[in-house]
């Protein structure tokens, strides 16, 4: 053990006991990833179609921008506690909060992805006889894919850093280490939990950055 809580955190992480069992690091990390994925996925199911619709038609743009602005301004801790009082403990309350947190980035990504397509290209596609759906799926989405993935990336990093709040109301994830460390003044444990969250966020960020690079359509990058 160590006097310095940061070195103590490394000792904590180095303990092989922490790496197995139902409250071990692999399980908690998997839970954390699961919450993040679920939150981003549900948010994407809502925000991406709306963003694509708004970007493609230009309709309800003001409404979408306003809604995203309000969602951005909502404090996540407040949402978690509010939803928890309304629906009880478990994953529902934090999940609702994560979805709210993820929607603005995803909406902006989907919306700007579609809007980024050169209007002349879209016009030409329409003049050639593509249906609106074909314009969206064959022209606008492929061309804006990296912006869309960028939105997913932003949302994922935000949710993964916030998913610790799931442990505030009865679920698992890496937040368990953070809250337990906080509650019992076991700062090495709290720091270790935070470090794991940071590493997870960086790994996801990097992976999605790579995906973003890969989805940039060939032909649009200068040779």
């Amino acid at each position, binding site marked *: *053990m160590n006097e*310095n809580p940061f070195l103590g955190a490394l000792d904590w992480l180095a303990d092989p006991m922490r790496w197995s069992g139902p409250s071990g690091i692999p399980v908690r990390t998997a839970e954390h990833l699961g919450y993040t994925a679920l939150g981003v996925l549900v948010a994407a199911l809502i925000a991406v179609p709306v963003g694509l619709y708004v970007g493609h038609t230009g309709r309800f743009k003001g409404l979408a921008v306003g809604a995203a602005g309000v969602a951005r301004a909502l404090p996540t801790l407040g949402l978690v506690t509010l939803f928890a009082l309304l629906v*009880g403990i478990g994953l529902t309350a934090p999940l609702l909060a994560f979805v709210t947190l993820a929607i603005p980035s995803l909406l902006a990504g989907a919306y700007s992805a579609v809007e980024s397509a050169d209007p002349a290209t879209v016009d030409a596609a329409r003049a050639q006889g593509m249906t609106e759906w074909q314009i969206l799926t064959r022209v606008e989405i492929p061309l804006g894919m990296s912006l869309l993935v960028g939105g997913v990336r932003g949302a994922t990093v935000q949710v993964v850093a916030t998913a610790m709040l799931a442990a505030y109301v009865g679920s698992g994830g890496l937040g368990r280490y953070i*809250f*337990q460390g906080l509650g*019992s*003044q076991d*700062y090495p444990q709290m720091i270790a939990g935070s470090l794991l969250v940071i590493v997870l966020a960086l790994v996801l960020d990097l992976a999605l950055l790579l995906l973003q690079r890969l989805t940039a359509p060939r032909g649009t990058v200068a040779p």
Partner: protein
Amino acid sequence: MSIHSTRRHLLGVLGAGGLALGAAACGSSDPFEEEDGSGGDSGSGSSDGGGSGAAIAIGSQAYYSNEIIAELFAQALEAEGLTVDRQYQIGQREVYMPELESGALDVLPEYLGNLLQHYDSEAVSATPEEVHSALAEALPDGLRVLDFAEATDQDSYTTTADFASAHSLTAIGDLAGVDEDLTIAANSEFEVRPYGPDGAKEVYGVDVSVVPVEDSGGPLTVQALVDGDVQLADIYTSDPAIAENDLVVLEDPESMILPQNVVPVVSEKIDEAAADAIDAVLAELSADDLVELNRRSTVEQQSSADIASAWLSEKGLV
């Protein structure tokens, strides 16, 4: 070296910061002074107009029940003609204890067991009297505890009436006979407390696992228990939700759980006259009274000032 010494090291640093803050909090230019006051002292005639040298600074934890008790002290002292400065809703013991030690705070309602554990993490359970005298030893120079109240606000192993009757439960030890996996909703630090899962296993031979709910036995914890998400919950015994939901607090014949009677920790600034005023309040404060005070806050959503003044006049204390 152990975790505890690590903790002390960090707390030392935290304490130094708290000291600095405490000094700042005395200055009238500190923007947080007013906020602290208005945080809990909604509407009542707070008399912080007097010189800060003469005023008695009363603090409270960030816990509505603790704030009510602090407000009882405040109004009782004001009735004696003293000037008080309310500094409620201070988050953590690691923050306010240094402020008490430095003299930035003069009075704060505490709980026997938790306060002792702050100074001696190895403290084992005992009777309230034993804890009280141990505290007198443990407290640093310049601080002392007054008499403790009958009212207590301690952790508990609580279950629903249905679950208790289905398995004939009256005491924690009876859980050993329950043939299913037991979970208890509690703050996550319950996991490492002496009366947590390890204590239950050691003292009563009972296996439980913790479902963390960070509202300190509040409505989320109660709801989780009532909804059957968990079989047990750590609910503070002063919580009116216990009676309202017909919950059963399992007995603790081995005194595994530390007694948490309300006890004021005070600085040297509290003279005998002031101490007498506080003692008078605590002498009247029964366990049922504390539950009722809490009920007025959670169910009736009254402010601590209104609750305190009503109770003090009921008891003829002001």
